């Protein structure tokens, strides 16, 4: 069974459009959005299944085949991120507070649409449109939390718009060189372009993507953004980061990664780890750790360890979701258990997907190719473990409350442990084969 992914985009847009007809009624919008997220999970599950059996496939829009028309390029990783984003939205709608306006839910719908589109589009200008949809809705939702939220949203929007301008410069340079906007076609045509043009295009796209992918230089919105975002958006922010990383993976496949990218990875890892160590705010410190994680994901791409890249990226997304959905709330043992399991997955405890990713990275060539970077990555993992352990111990309290948020957090972490266990039981060879296919 296969359902065209355009149904997911069409219905999400229709729900957002319907909001004005429903007079932005919060209850109606919440119910409609929950149903939409459930439908989208089903759609992307069929896409994931097809990508697993057939490999990456193209879906044309309006009957115009790429490169003339805009198409979706559905890989396993892209379908998985779109599926997880919609599942997370469903979890957020079912578990978090209900005192939001209809407009708030409309904006959340557009954010999820943008992130899903970024993961699946096969056209790099269309990627810009999806990125802007996600960025504008993120800023508008962030501003829902009063004046401090508005300040954080303004800061985020500035970085996102600087990124968007750089991204468009990259699009202009590559379009002039290759005459196409399609990723697959670009990979074929760009070989004839000069090295300088390719380097300029790659640099501009990379800088443009760094705000969403939480990499320096444009990731400086992260601490304030994570601190002030409403709980619903906070739990969904890691999925935007994952969608940003999918673009960098595609760029790496087309252009390769030059040596300056390792400087960005080092700077992001060190900045994120040191700032997380010093931070006194839980949300802010997870934001900084997310930056460090982005740097480690980039290192996996630099080494060419595709399996490790996918494992570390998925661990970062689900592990951070497990922790961020519990960001606000009282001190009780249920919350501590959720945070603990999320922490173990995120740190890379044996039998978790994080462990598989880290082992895959260390033995996948990192130690031989980049010995100094290995030390930086190991130090970052250690800092991550200490910072998270500190937070878990500070949240430990008497009385066990297992509310819906705790359940969502535990499910998210358990997925990482089950996936990691299955892969480890199968052995390293199979791990590389299965995870390598995700790309």
């Amino acid at each position, binding site marked *: 069974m296969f359902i065209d992914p355009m149904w997911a985009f069409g219905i999400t847009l229709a729900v957002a459009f319907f909001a004005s007809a429903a007079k932005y009624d919060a209850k109606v919008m919440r119910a409609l959005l929950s149903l939409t997220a459930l439908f989208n999970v089903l759609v992307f599950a069929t896409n994931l299944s097809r990508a697993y059996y057939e490999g990456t496939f193209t879906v044309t829009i309006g009957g115009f085949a790429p490169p003339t028309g805009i198409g979706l390029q559905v890989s396993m990783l892209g379908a998985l991120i779109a599926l997880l984003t919609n599942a997370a939205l469903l979890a957020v709608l079912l578990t978090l507070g209900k005192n939001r306006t209809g407009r708030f839910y409309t904006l959340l719908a557009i954010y999820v649409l943008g992130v899903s589109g970024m993961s699946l589009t096969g056209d790099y*200008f269309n990627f*810009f*449109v999806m990125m*802007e949809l996600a960025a*504008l809705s993120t*800023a*508008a939702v962030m*501003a829902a939390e009063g*004046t401090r939220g*508005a*300040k954080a*949203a*303004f800061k985020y*929007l*500035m970085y996102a*718009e*600087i990124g*968007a*301008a750089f991204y*468009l*410069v990259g*699009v*202009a340079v590559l*379009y*002039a060189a290759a005459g196409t*906007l399609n990723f697959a076609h670009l990979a074929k045509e760009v070989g004839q372009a000069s090295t300088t043009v390719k380097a300029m295009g790659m640099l501009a796209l990379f800088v443009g993507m760094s705000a969403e992918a939480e990499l320096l230089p444009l990731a400086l919105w992260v601490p304030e953004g994570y601190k002030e975002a409403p709980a619903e958006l906070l739990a969904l922010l890691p999925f935007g980061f994952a969608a940003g990383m999918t673009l960098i993976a595609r760029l790496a496949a087309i252009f390769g990664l030059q040596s300056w990218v390792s400087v960005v990875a080092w700077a992001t890892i060190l900045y994120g780890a040191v700032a997380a160590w010093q931070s006194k705010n839980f949300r802010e410190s997870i934001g900084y750790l997310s930056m460090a994680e982005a740097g480690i994901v980039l290192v996996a791409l630099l080494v060419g360890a595709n399996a490790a890249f996918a494992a570390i990226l998925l661990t970062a997304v689900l592990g951070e979701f497990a922790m961020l959905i519990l960001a606000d709330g009282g001190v009780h043992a249920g919350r501590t258990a959720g945070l603990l399991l999320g922490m173990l997955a995120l740190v890379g405890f044996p039998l978790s997907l994080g462990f598989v990713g880290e082992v895959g990275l260390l033995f996948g060539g990192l130690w031989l190719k980049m010995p100094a970077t290995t030390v930086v990555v190991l130090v970052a993992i250690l800092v991550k473990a200490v910072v998270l352990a500190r937070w878990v111990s500070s949240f430990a309290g008497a009385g066990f409350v297992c509310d819906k948020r705790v359940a969502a957090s535990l499910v998210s972490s358990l997925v990482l442990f089950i996936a990691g266990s299955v892969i480890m039981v199968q052995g390293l060879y199979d791990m590389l084969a299965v995870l390598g296919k995700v790309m």
Partner: protein
Amino acid sequence: MIYYVFAFTLIGLGLFAIMFKKNLFKIVIGIELMTAGVNLLFIAVGFVVGGTAPIFEESAKFSGFVDPVPQALILTSIVIGAASVGLASALALRAGSAKGGDLDVH
């Protein structure tokens, strides 16, 4: 060539305003300048000296057209740019309202 120079000058001016100006609205103007620079860059990419509008007619030659794709892209970019500037202005007003209308970054 002159279009490219203008485009990158506008992008540079916009970036300068965003990085060094303290007033939120001057920062928003910086975004607008960057967007305008990028739009001009796209137009320059598709421009053909002595080219004609890409409209097919029976009598027209099927060559010498300016590239219509960058122009189509820019229409999208202009709409998104307008939304960004509108939202940024609203956020600036909201952020400033708590400080009695003070719109400077401190």
